């Protein structure tokens, strides 16, 4: 009797294992080698032992085995079954190990399904429910582990997912219902056990659990759109969490969801989003922005409020330049909305008084960037009408945009220069062709970080190339602006030029050396052109009615200064540039000529000298002798005999072509530093009224050659005194020279104290023609300042004076 009982015992239990009858069949044939089976059997029997610590250790051992074995084979089922049995153990460390093991098994099952292609949705749902039932465990680690396990699930049915969000039990007849009917589940493990685990999870007392719940919420979003939408509601609530780590994790989750396109923001979420944009924490703000750059906003109203939020954020934290790139990508993602914004902005620009639109305003900058992003948007099939005035205003922001965006975008931005300069030209908008500009496409946060980091590195090394590139674009713009001087209002041209210069200045701050010199040269160039445009305007006006002569005088003087600077203060100008500068000098002189009507001998000599120089430069044919120069030369040759020159300046101006050089070579800017050590308004130098005072200067000169004539100009009230600097006394090479020298100032005033304004000037050679007479023993030619004026404070030692 004993024997018969024993032998018949294993029979029924093998024929029909109650827990996993459905799965054992197909797996049976796929048993692998004997290795894991022995381990599994030993561990499973230990897991059923009496002592909790041994049970927990056995489960951990099983987990190690499961990690080791392949997806096939019955070992996984075996471990899974064992873990399920211990899921409700009294000891929390056992529950923890069991949950972990189930999570591992779920991964293996999912992997197996992927290989075989046969999905077993019911089994996945079952595991999901089992893990869910532990998500309300009283032990914190178990809850965390349960959520971590849930995050790894694959192919969970929508009904179960939705149930996990809602505390209320959703009664459905489909899918989930079948599980209950199939009686596969133990009596306590039925559908409602998943109810609201996330609703509880995100309210958990421990932030670690909340973080885990948040991660899982996001990870599961890929299975169901409806779930993703509802999960978003919960995630939005979590942005108010009191722990920063949770808020950051929430944003990370939202970012991931947005990256994979499961994030559909609704109006009710906007309030929360906008609040995070102005969060006190920079990381939170940054993360919130990144999400905004990815999401799709269904309504114009939401789009506008997002923009407003970003602008507010920009105003509060102007140092966060990446807002611009976010604005750009938002605009790009919502082509038609951006076009709408552009339209409104254009209206605003046109109604702005006197064209004075303050580009420094963050709002205008932000809206401009959004506007120009419209053409690169995906809605290419729609015809997006971006008013051209937007582009001309956006040009100066190019630098800001390009530094905020990656290089990819910069390529796209090249379209900007075309419509911007020629609003009347019938050129279609050149949008960035193809979808290669998807800067914010599918990338994880880390990926984006890496990209940004890489771009930054590349930008650093290719900085100069980049600047040169954008400057070239700008010069093209300037050229085109010049071309439209007839058709456009002076204001518009002036605005373009002024903003261009601003932009150059922005670059100039960061750069040094040859690039810096080039940029400062450009500044002068732009100034000169602006002057020419303005002078031209004044001259044309003068034809009709009189206008105060002073403004013209000032402009002429300004133009002279700019041109002189370009001529004298830069070394290494190539021939093309030299010709251009000379042409500008010529033009400046012609202006003077036309202003005074009659020309002196001196003036004629000067013109002659310039033309000769031009001639000489172009003689070998390396440079083109322009129509302008040619005409001037012919006019000059024809009229020179009688000593007067009747100049129709308007005619010349018409011929004058602005043709910026394509190649700039290596420019060097002459500059100087002038210092008086230890002197300031608090510590003045002593002097005796009426007697000369010696001031000790530290001077350093950069890029000054031995032939240059440098003067130190000292100036107090009416008295100006020039002192020549003997360059041979300087130490150093051509690049940097320095010396300390004591220079006396003779005309000290009869005052208690005075301020001596000192500055270094360089003489501009103009052949042998003397413009200035050496009245005070000063420079023969016109001069250009090399540095800013330095104030030297002097105080009288005379006691009488003090009284």
């Amino acid at each position, binding site marked *: 009797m004993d024997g018969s009982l*024993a*032998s018949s015992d294993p029979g029924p239990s093998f024929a029909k*294992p109650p827990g996993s009858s459905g799965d054992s069949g197909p797996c049976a044939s796929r048993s692998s080698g004997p290795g894991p089976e022995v381990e599994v*059997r030993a561990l*499973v029997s230990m897991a*059923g032992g009496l002592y909790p610590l041994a049970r927990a250790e056995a489960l951990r051992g099983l987990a190690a085995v499961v990690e080791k074995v392949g997806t096939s084979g019955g070992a996984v089922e075996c471990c899974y079954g064992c873990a399920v049995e211990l899921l409700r153990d009294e000891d929390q460390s056992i529950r923890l190990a069991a949950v972990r093991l189930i999570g591992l098994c779920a991964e293996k099952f999912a992997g197996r399904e992927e290989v075989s292609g046969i999905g077993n949705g019911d089994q996945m749902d079952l595991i999901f429910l089992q893990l869910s039932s532990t998500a309300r465990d*009283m032990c914190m680690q178990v809850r965390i582990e349960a959520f971590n396990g849930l995050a790894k699930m694959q192919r969970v049915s929508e009904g179960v997912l939705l149930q996990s969000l809602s505390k209320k039990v959703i009664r459905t007849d489909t899918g989930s219902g079948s599980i209950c009917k199939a009686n596969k589940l133990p009596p306590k493990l039925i559908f409602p056990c998943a109810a609201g685990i996330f609703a509880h999870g995100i309210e958990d*007392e421990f932030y670690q659990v909340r973080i885990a719940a948040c991660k899982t919420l996001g990870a599961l979003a890929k299975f169901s759109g409806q779930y993703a939408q509802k999960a978003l509601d919960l995630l939005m609530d979590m942005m*108010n969490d009191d722990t920063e780590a949770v808020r950051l994790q929430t944003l990370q989750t939202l970012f991931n969801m947005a990256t994979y396109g499961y994030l559909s923001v609704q109006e009710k979420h906007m309030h929360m989003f906008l609040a995070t944009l102005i969060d006190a924490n920079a990381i939170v703000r940054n993360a919130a922005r990144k999400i905004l750059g990815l999401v799709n906003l269904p309504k114009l109203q939401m789009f506008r409020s997002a923009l407003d939020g970003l602008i507010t954020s920009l105003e509060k934290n102007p140092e966060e330049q990446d807002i611009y790139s976010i604005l750009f990508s938002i605009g790009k993602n919502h082509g038609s909305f951006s076009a709408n914004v552009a339209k409104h902005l254009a209206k605003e620009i046109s109604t702005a008084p006197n064209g004075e639109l303050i580009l420094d305003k963050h709002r205008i900058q932000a809206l401009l960037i959004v506007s120009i992003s419209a053409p690169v948007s995906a809605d290419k099939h729609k015809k997006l009408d971006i008013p051209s005035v937007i582009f001309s205003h956006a040009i100066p922001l190019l630098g800001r945009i390009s530094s905020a965006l990656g290089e990819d975008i910069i390529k796209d931005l090249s379209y900007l220069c075309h419509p911007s300069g020629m609003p009347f030209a019938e050129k279609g908008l050149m949008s960035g062709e193809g979808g290669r500009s998807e800067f914010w496409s599918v990338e994880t946060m880390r990926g984006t970080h890496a990209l940004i980091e890489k771009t930054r590195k590349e930008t650093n090394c290719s900085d100069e190339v980049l600047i040169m590139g954008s400057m070239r674009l700008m010069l093209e713009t300037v050229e085109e602006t010049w071309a439209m001087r007839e058709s456009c209002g002076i204001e518009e041209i002036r605005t373009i030029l002024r903003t261009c210069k601003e932009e150059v200045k922005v670059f100039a701050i960061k750069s040094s050396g040859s690039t810096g010199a080039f940029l400062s040269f450009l500044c002068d160039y732009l100034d000169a052109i602006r002057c020419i445009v303005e002078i031209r305007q004044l001259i044309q006006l003068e034809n009709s009615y009189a206008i105060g002569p002073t403004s013209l005088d000032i402009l002429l003087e300004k133009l002279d200064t700019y041109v002189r600077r370009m001529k004298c203060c830069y070394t290494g100008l190539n021939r093309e540039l030299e010709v251009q500068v000379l042409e500008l000098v010529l033009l400046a002189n012609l202006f003077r000529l036309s202003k005074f009507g009659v020309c002196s001998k001196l003036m004629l000599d000067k013109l002659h000298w310039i033309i000769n120089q031009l001639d000489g430069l172009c003689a070998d044919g390396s440079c083109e002798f322009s129509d302008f120069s040619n005409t001037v030369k012919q006019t000059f040759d024809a009229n020179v005999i009688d000593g007067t020159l009747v100049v129709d300046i308007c005619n010349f101006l018409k011929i004058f072509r602005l043709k910026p050089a394509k190649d700039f070579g290596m420019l060097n800017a002459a500059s100087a530093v002038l210092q008086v050590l230890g002197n300031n308004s608090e510590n003045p130098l002593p002097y005796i009224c009426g007697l000369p005072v010696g001031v000790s200067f530290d001077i350093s000169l950069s890029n000054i050659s031995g032939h240059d004539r440098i003067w130190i100009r000292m100036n107090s009230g009416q008295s100006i005194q020039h002192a020549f600097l003997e360059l041979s006394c300087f130490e150093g090479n051509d690049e940097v020279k320095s010396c300390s020298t004591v220079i006396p100032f003779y005309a000290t005033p009869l005052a208690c104290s005075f301020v001596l304004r000192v500055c270094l000037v360089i003489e501009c050679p103009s052949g042998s023609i003397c413009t200035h007479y050496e009245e005070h023993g000063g420079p023969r030619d016109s001069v250009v300042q090399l540095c800013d004026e330095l104030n030297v404070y002097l105080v009288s030692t005379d006691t009488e004076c003090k009284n």
Partner: protein
Amino acid sequence: MAIECLVLGAGQEVGKSCVVVTIGGKRIMFDCGMHMGYHDCNRYPDFARILAAAPETTDFTSAISCVIITHFHLDHIGALPYFTEVCGYHGPIYMTYPTKALAPLMLEDYRKVMVDQRGEEEQYSYEDILRCMKKVIPVDLKQTIQVNRDLVIRAYYAGHYLSKLKVLGAAMVYAKVGDAAMVYTGDYNMTPDRHLGAAQIERLKLDLLITESTYAKTIRDSKHAREREFLKAVHKCVSEGGKVLIPTFALGRAQELCILLDDYWERMNLKIPIYFSAGLTIQANMYYKMLIGWTSQKIKDSYTVQNPFDFKHVCHFERSFINDPGPCVLFATPGMISGGFSLEVFKRWATSDKNLVTLPGYCVAGTIGHKLMSGKPTRIDIDKDTHVDVRCQIHQLSFSPHTDSKGIMDLTEFLSPNHVILVHGEKPQMAFLKDRIESELGMSCYYPANNETVSIPTTQNMKISATEKFITNCAALQARDSLQKSDLISSIHLSGVNEDERLAEGILLMEKSKAPKILCEDEFLKLLGTDRHSVQFEPLLPSRIEEAEAAIVDDLTSE
């Protein structure tokens, strides 16, 4: 053995919680509350029934092993001084430290209201309260206390709060006599708060769970949503230059909202002042600081770095600030604007439509808070002569008390007791929950009315010794089994391992005055001194040949 459960109060009603449980001859009284709705003898539990149920004795001290109070709400502790001082119970009383600290305040407050305001006859004096509190033995969480030789009790964190008063120190109580074990929950909360944690308990082997069921049918929505609405309303009001009045009670609620606002202020970088009316902070924060171990994890964590109740953006309110221009947020007592400072401020601020008044979830009828909640009145009469034109906005804070039905189900599922008794709830809801527990969790569930007794069978474990031969026999049997199995497993599959039921055969011998023992068949025979008799059965197939023959004969004859 059985557990006898006599419900003296809170049976199919809310109020005067009092359950007397008899386990293994030990009688424990859980809670000793009073009913706030009655002013006659119905206000206290009918203590006489305890004596009726205990015929062997005539006084309470010997009838009851101990009294355990879960928390300091009057419906859980209100009758205690009466029971000890008037009825004369002198046995041990257990409660947690915070409860012991806060209970006398509550009791004395109520006694004053009863005697001074209503002019009722004094049931017990202040001295009675003090004498009663002297008998109290404070317990810590998870501290196991051996009440007497058999009875063991242990308190667990219950995290309960009520809308009026956040409750520190609420506990669930585990009691065990022999093998019979039970848990009495008191009021508890399964959703954590900003400053109070969620209930925490271990998985125990229980025969009985007595749980509250205030929200037996309700499922509350997310706490976050309510907080968000609150913050949104407050932020909107102050950003438009309005003033926000938040009437609160001294303990708990103000702290909760203040943590919330302070946090939000910090994040949003708001500079608008948050005021606490004097008195609120001093008393309440003192208790909270004292009892930091009873708060939520976040508060505990941050306590080492900074005192979480020292709010960064909160300052004290001076009476002269009432008419100051500009936005602000003010916490003022009492919570239902029934008078005092919050009424004074309300009178001034309610007339502007820019201002906002947030009301607690529950207001007693007759208070201004109640009037504001029921519809939106435009004019409120404070007394015969004064009235207030109400133009301000009103936001209702629905921070609700107690755990919801989901929480009850979760706890019940987690503890997995054999039986559940519902108390502290409304009858129809309890019936609903009973059905759910029975159908979904498969436990038997009861919801007795007051003064009813439920008897619950308990499991009883018995120690049995086994003979050496029996054990060796078993082991040999198993070894053979597993050998056979291992052959099978390696050749087929592994799933059989889980169904390893170790069967063994033996004979249980229970003799009087001897420990029960299990032994083998031959040992048993030896013990009896008899030989083995075997009875064999032969299968016997009934045959009806005669009938069949007769039938055939019949057939033949008929032909």
